[in-house]
């Protein structure tokens, strides 16, 4: 499976610190997305970056994409306890765009 891989698997930080999560993938992609999942719930879409984009911002989120290295990073600035969740990168690589492939996720714990 052409899956993204997140790094680290788990991350624990203090409230107010920045959290950085990385994602690597194997093949050329159309888009890369980041999702958040609170414990035991469904995933919520956070941000999408297209293959011709290098950086996007949304509130406290900053996503970068390096297609030459097949990698992306998600930065959450000034983290809050409510940011505690699992974060997944997801890649759309087939022309039809239906088969979105998810990585195993990074578990973020923000201590108050």
């Amino acid at each position, binding site marked *: *499976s052409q*899956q993204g891989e997140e790094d680290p698997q788990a991350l624990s930080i203090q409230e107010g610190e920045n959290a950085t999560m990385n994602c690597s993938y194997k093949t050329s992609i*159309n*888009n890369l*997305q980041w*999702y958040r999942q609170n414990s*035991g*719930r*469904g*995933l*919520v*879409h956070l941000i*999408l970056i*297209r293959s011709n984009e290098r950086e996007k911002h949304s509130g406290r989120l900053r996503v970068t994409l390096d297609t030459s290295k097949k990698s992306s990073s998600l930065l959450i600035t000034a983290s809050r306890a409510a940011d505690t969740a699992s974060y*997944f990168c*997801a890649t*759309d690589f087939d022309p*039809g*765009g*239906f*088969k*979105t*492939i*998810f*990585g*195993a*996720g990074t578990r973020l714990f923000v201590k108050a």
Partner: protein
Amino acid sequence: DVKVTQSSRYLVKRTGEKVFLECVQDMDHENMFWYRQDPGLGLRLIYFSYDVKMKEKGDIPEGYSVSREKKERFSLILESASTNQTSMYLCASSLLGSGANVLTFGAGSRLTVL
């Protein structure tokens, strides 16, 4: 508030039982998906559908079937449940032709097969 609704949050079934997981979306999305989520494995695509009565296999279709008789409803069927199908099942939908497959997920159905 638009949403994807999965009919059961928790199910406990016995080996060999037939299991139906129902999913309904109210966003008029063409595409619907079933994923299963297991610790350390992320989400794996079981089946998807891009139109009524259309279905495509994902990465792990074995042991599963699907039904899409109406645009808003996508059902996942386990013909004969087995213990290795104990998992969290996530339904999602997306809009056709948006240029990217941005998924809206349901809350999930946690299935335990004894």
